[in-house]
């Protein structure tokens, strides 16, 4: 389909505009984190300072929040990887009744808005579940956050692994079995190396997703635990802390984007 030159130029221009639209706000925050003044006005080329970065490093609040976020994201990532990989292996290799229901189920935590997931999980965690012999209450804190985050991170790992499995030939596994390898050998020598970079990509994306999540977190964290997004949310309207918020927001951005890029490269590198 050959489009006329003006049409093609118009499309190119529009795409360029969209790119500017996408990156401009992020660039503004980045620039503001180096701005000595506490306002959010565009400082142009005057005034660069690393003071705020130093203050953010020294302050307890953001650092603790950052560490908490990392801890939660890491454990949630591991859980999500395990669960997502298992589900992907089942879905990729077998035909069974209820396949589409399973894929629907996997997507649900991320497709439903955070407030629904958050309220539902908060409700469950706050209840004392009586199982006759013993009763327990999940409660709130690190563990509740991990459970909540893992739940919606599963789909990210699942997507990555299943895309990789679908791309690879099923004959490899059959050949391996024909050559006498049993289950765990096949997994160790064939399946796992195949999936390795997809696992890494899915893990990175799951980490980034959990690291940045705010809505479900506000419902499931409880009062004693604060992640970085929670800290940002609590502080962005406090005039004293605006520069620190700029720094932390920039930090999240500057860490997440290259990670996502890395994940993208990893997932593409796979079998072909």
């Amino acid at each position, binding site marked *: 389909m050959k489009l006329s030159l003006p049409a093609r130029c118009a499309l190119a221009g529009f795409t360029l505009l*969209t790119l500017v639209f*996408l990156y401009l706000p992020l660039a503004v925050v980045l620039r503001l984190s180096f701005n000595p003044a506490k306002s959010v006005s565009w400082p142009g080329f005057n005034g660069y300072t690393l003071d705020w970065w130093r203050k953010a490093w020294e302050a307890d609040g953001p650092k603790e929040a950052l560490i908490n976020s990392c801890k939660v994201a890491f454990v949630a990532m591991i859980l999500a990887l395990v669960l997502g990989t298992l589900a992907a292996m089942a879905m990729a*290799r077998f035909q*069974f009744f209820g396949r589409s229901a399973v894929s629907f189920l996997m997507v649900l935590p991320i497709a439903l808005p955070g*407030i629904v997931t958050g309220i539902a999980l908060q409700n469950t965690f706050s209840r004392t579940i009586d199982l006759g012999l013993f009763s327990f209450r999940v409660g709130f804190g690190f563990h509740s956050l991990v459970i909540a985050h893992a739940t919606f991170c599963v789909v990210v790992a699942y997507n990555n692994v299943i895309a990789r499995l679908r791309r690879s030939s099923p004959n490899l596994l059959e050949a391996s079995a024909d050559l006498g390898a049993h289950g*765990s050998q096949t997994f160790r020598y064939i399946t796992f190396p195949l999936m390795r970079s997809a696992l890494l990509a899915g893990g990175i994306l799951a980490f980034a997703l959990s690291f940045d999540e705010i809505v479900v977190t506000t419902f499931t964290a409880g009062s004693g635990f604060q992640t970085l997004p929670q800290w940002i949310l609590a502080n962005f309207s406090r*005039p004293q802390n605006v520069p620190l918020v700029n720094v932390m927001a920039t930090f999240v951005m500057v860490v997440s*984007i290259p990670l996502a890029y890395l994940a993208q490269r990893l997932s593409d590198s796979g079998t072909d």
Partner: protein
Amino acid sequence: MGERLDRSAGVAEPSTEQNDATSGRAFGSSHPMRSINRVFHGRRRLGVGALLGAPLGWMLLIYIGSLLLLVVSALYRLDPITQKPTHELTNQNLIAAFKFWDPDVWPAIWVFFRTAAVALLVTLLCFLIALPVAFFVAKVAPRWIRRGLVVALLMPLWAGYLVKGYAWRAMVSPAGGRFAAAGQGDGGFLESVFGWTPGFGRMAIVVALVYLWLPFMILPIYAGLDRLPPSLLDAASDLGAKPFRTFRSVVLPMLLPSVAAGSIFTFSLTLGDYIVPQIVNNGQERFMFGTIINATLGAPNQPLAAAYTLWPLVIIILYLLAMKRAGAFENL
């Protein structure tokens, strides 16, 4: 009989037995892994069950279970004295939340419809922006730049929800006046560079939401266009169709599943979103329905909040099922 994968990751690794070249078998038939193999061989359902058991169990128990519990919790009566939900069942909350004929409920209904309208508007805007961009990248841009463009368009997705919301707050902050957030009296980027800003308010909410979900719409449309065989477009033009006609009659219908997939995020996430709208609205009014749910929860009136949550939940489940029919789930 196809391949089978046992969930053998948890099994201890066998000792280093050498490959028995003379007999042609890698391990003796009495090896524990062989026994496991024998159990799973031919029993496909067992294999599926072993693999799916943990993830499915998790999702069903924790997630679906929580959703169901939420629905049930809407039936609990709130003890007016302790302000805690009791275990007495009542349909009081459901009635309160669904009493559409009661004027007291009308403000909430109005907010809900407004939120749904915003969700549709955001979906439409994302679609209108994503379509030309995705088309350019998939079909018009030269091949060498395509990968770079896709990456460039998708990376902002990962900057972070809150970061992006906060970034828009920094963009649209108005200067001085009664809207000035403390410490931001000079106005944000738009104000200080262009002298004009939409300020905190409804337009900022819509723009911020479009900004958040745009990459979610671009990606599936791009993937859908990428999958479109170019021979199809050539055939259309051979049959005499001008580009626009080809677009309308060939490309758009084939893009329906992709658009459906993208719209899942733009519609559903907007419907329940309340944090970024509050950030760019400076908390001035309860614009989005999520704010009402949150406020009710903090009242504290958890059962009523749960009842209110049913509104978006039902709508979104219906929307998801409709999108599933449109083929969205093949594209996620």
